[in-house]
């Protein structure tokens, strides 16, 4: 019941309240990033494990994050249009095969296209089932994952067995995509990174990671993120697509072809997942192996969810997954330092909630935070067996603490039928 208030505008069309809101969000985001870095840096110094922000670790983290991020962006596209897509895993697998096949015969750039194409085919299946035939989205997604695995396994045996460096379950020695290293700058940053100064070295490590042996594919991904957030939030096309996810009937009542937009969204979604597969086969390593995605599609979905259905949130969450994964593989001992990091993070949240007088949340965060702090103080290594749990536990933890505050598109996962307007 908001009372009609006089409209507030500067006829000269100054910065609109909306633009201001975006701006505020941006600054907030940067502050957050900086804050996190500061805490990390602190932890590095306290725990004396330089590896947690070493250029090499961060580079590995970026590598590990990319496939997850691509899957997450894929999820973002389709869910913003109201279609839940847990078929990402299967579409990713199709992507690995497509990348391998096309790279072998036509070279890596075609490999990317091939991966996107195969992924998009998976997306098409999903779109036909969910949009045209109104099948439950999760059900269809599950089926697509079965098909994806079966198809790639079979097609690998059928097409790769007799190739050079090939076998029924692998195809290695694929031509790599080019790398770039920013001469000079890279070395400077690496040097700074080695100095171990508070914050400076950590930021340097990050910049070094971004300027050293960086695959062009990674650059492409950054562009895809920017493109995604621009298209979805700044263009008429994006507005229509999101409207289909928020209220398809409203969209249709204004002449938006809801089915069309949902189809586009899900196809793009599949293509992104496919590219994620390509990254695994071409950049993460120079070869295809059956069932290579190993659950990264699901992780990507999770990343998108607690990225709160936003591109940058997804980037953040994927980065977290990639980072923990890289760290556990490179230096399991350093994982122990993460306990402190998590503890501090949780306690910070607790403080925030407390300050907002949200006592329940504050309590929960506080308890978990202290638990981790104790764990850190009372042990000096995390049993290797458990380092593997990190991404999964992190997901559960974050979701169980944050789920209430997440905001999925209003019509996400709901089946919509043409002509049901009014």
């Amino acid at each position, binding site marked *: 019941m908001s009372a009609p208030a006089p409209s507030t505008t500067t006829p000269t069309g100054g910065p609109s309240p909306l633009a201001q809101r975006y701006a505020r969000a941006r600054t907030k985001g940067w502050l957050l990033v900086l804050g996190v870095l500061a805490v990390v840096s602190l932890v590095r110094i306290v725990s004396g494990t330089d590896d947690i922000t070493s250029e090499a670790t961060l580079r590995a983290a970026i590598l590990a994050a990319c496939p997850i991020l691509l899957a997450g962006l894929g999820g973002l596209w389709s869910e913003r249009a109201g279609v839940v897509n847990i078929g990402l895993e299967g579409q990713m697998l199709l992507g690995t095969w497509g990348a391998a096949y096309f790279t072998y015969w036509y070279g890596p750039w075609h490999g990317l296209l091939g991966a996107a194409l195969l992924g998009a085919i998976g997306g098409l299946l999903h779109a036909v089932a969910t949009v045209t035939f109104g099948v439950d989205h999760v059900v269809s997604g*599950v*089926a697509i994952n079965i098909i994806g695995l*079966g198809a790639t396994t*079979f097609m690998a*045996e059928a097409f790769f067995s007799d190739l050079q460096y090939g076998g029924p379950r692998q195809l290695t020695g694929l031509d790599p995509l080019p790398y770039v290293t920013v001469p000079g700058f890279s070395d400077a940053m690496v040097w700074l990174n080695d100095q171990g100064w508070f914050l400076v070295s950590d930021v340097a490590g990050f910049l070094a990671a971004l300027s050293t042996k960086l695959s062009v594919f990674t650059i492409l991904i950054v562009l895809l993120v920017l493109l995604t957030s621009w298209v979805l939030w700044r263009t008429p096309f994006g507005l229509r697509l999101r409207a289909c996810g928020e209220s398809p009937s409203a969209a249709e009542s204004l002449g938006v072809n809801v089915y069309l937009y949902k189809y586009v969204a899900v196809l793009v979604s599949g293509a992104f997942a496919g590219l994620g597969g390509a990254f695994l086969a071409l950049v993460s390593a120079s070869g295809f192996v059956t069932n290579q995605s190993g659950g990264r599609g699901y992780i990507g979905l999770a990343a998108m969810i607690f990225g709160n259905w936003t591109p940058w949130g997804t980037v953040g969450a994927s980065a977290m997954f990639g980072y923990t994964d890289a760290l556990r593989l490179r230096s399991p001992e350093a994982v122990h330092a993460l306990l402190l990091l998590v503890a501090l993070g949780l306690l910070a949240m607790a403080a925030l909630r407390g300050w907002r007088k949200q006592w329940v949340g504050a309590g929960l965060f506080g308890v978990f935070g202290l638990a981790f702090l104790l764990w850190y103080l009372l042990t000096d290594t995390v049993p290797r*067996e458990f380092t593997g749990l990190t991404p*999964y536990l992190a997901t559960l933890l974050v979701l169980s603490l944050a*789920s209430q505050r997440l905001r999925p598109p209003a019509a996400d996962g709901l089946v919509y039928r043409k002509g049901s307007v009014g």
Partner: protein
Amino acid sequence: MNALRSLFFGLLAPVIAVAIAVVATSVVIIASGSDSGVGSFWSIMLAVPQDRILVNIVNQSSMIYLSAVAVAIGFRMNLFNIGVEGQYLVASYAAATFVGAALLPGFVNIVLGLVIAIAVGAAWAGIAGLLKTYRGVSEVISTIMLNAIAGIVVSYFLDKYGVHGGNQVNTATAPESSWVPGWTPFTSADGAIWSLDLLAVLVGVGFWVLLSRTRLGFDLRATGASTTAAVASGVSVERMTLVAMLLSGGVAGLIWMPAYFGSAHVYGTTFQAGLGFTGIAVALLGRNQPLGMVFGALLFAFLSAQSNSLTLQTDISSSVVQITQGVAVLAVVVAYELVRRSRSRVEQRAVARATAPVNQEVAA
């Protein structure tokens, strides 16, 4: 007439689906340029199964069926328990460890082993249930995560407390007194139909009774059909979510028990992973109906068992069967949706005919 029609509608979808799957598979085989060719593929797949294959089909399908029921219990109230895989993994390990410890005499050991399997499976599923009811975490994500966690945790304990030997780690072997061999319909070489396959029958009947004859089942279905209406009718969705998850996990716990007591007797190398995901597919294929899933389970078991000869007699990989299965599932859900629509159209006409207003003849 009415019964006839519903039977027709009931069978229509699966038939269409299987047909589509057959076509898709054939196309794939042709596309793959196999030398043996589609003909030999189908002649092998559709050959009359040998005796031991029949036995395997019975054993496999009952485990698959248990898994399907576990999944269906959740699906029936739109609860997507993707975590059956992890639940029966943890439960199988726990039960095997307990039975292997042989703390109790044979029979009691068996019964308690089963109870533990149920309890542990339920508990593992319960985590997802609690996360959903109290923290609003989507069970799809949480169960997927719990699957991964289950694998790591179990292997950790197996490695720490298991029996190491010949590159392998197993739980302690169950005492002979706690074996439940089974019935040998043909020669002993053709294997035995495990007695505990009966669990599948019991669970199936139980599931049917629960759904169609009990208040709990009604609430379950109501919640699935319309959460809002169920809430208004006095169903506590939180409670139902928990109950469904626990039931689902409990049944999941039983999945591998026939094999364990029947032939494996240890948890380790011979543990059959993946049944949890097969169960999802079969539940969808059987439309979460007690009877439908029987056919689904038999079909899947049949396909896998028959496909075993493929690599011996043709150059076609048996993984093609996964495609058949996946396509069948997708096709069947689509087909069911179409059938549902045409059915409700038919019904509305019936209503109009019954409540004849003036506009009737215009309609005709």
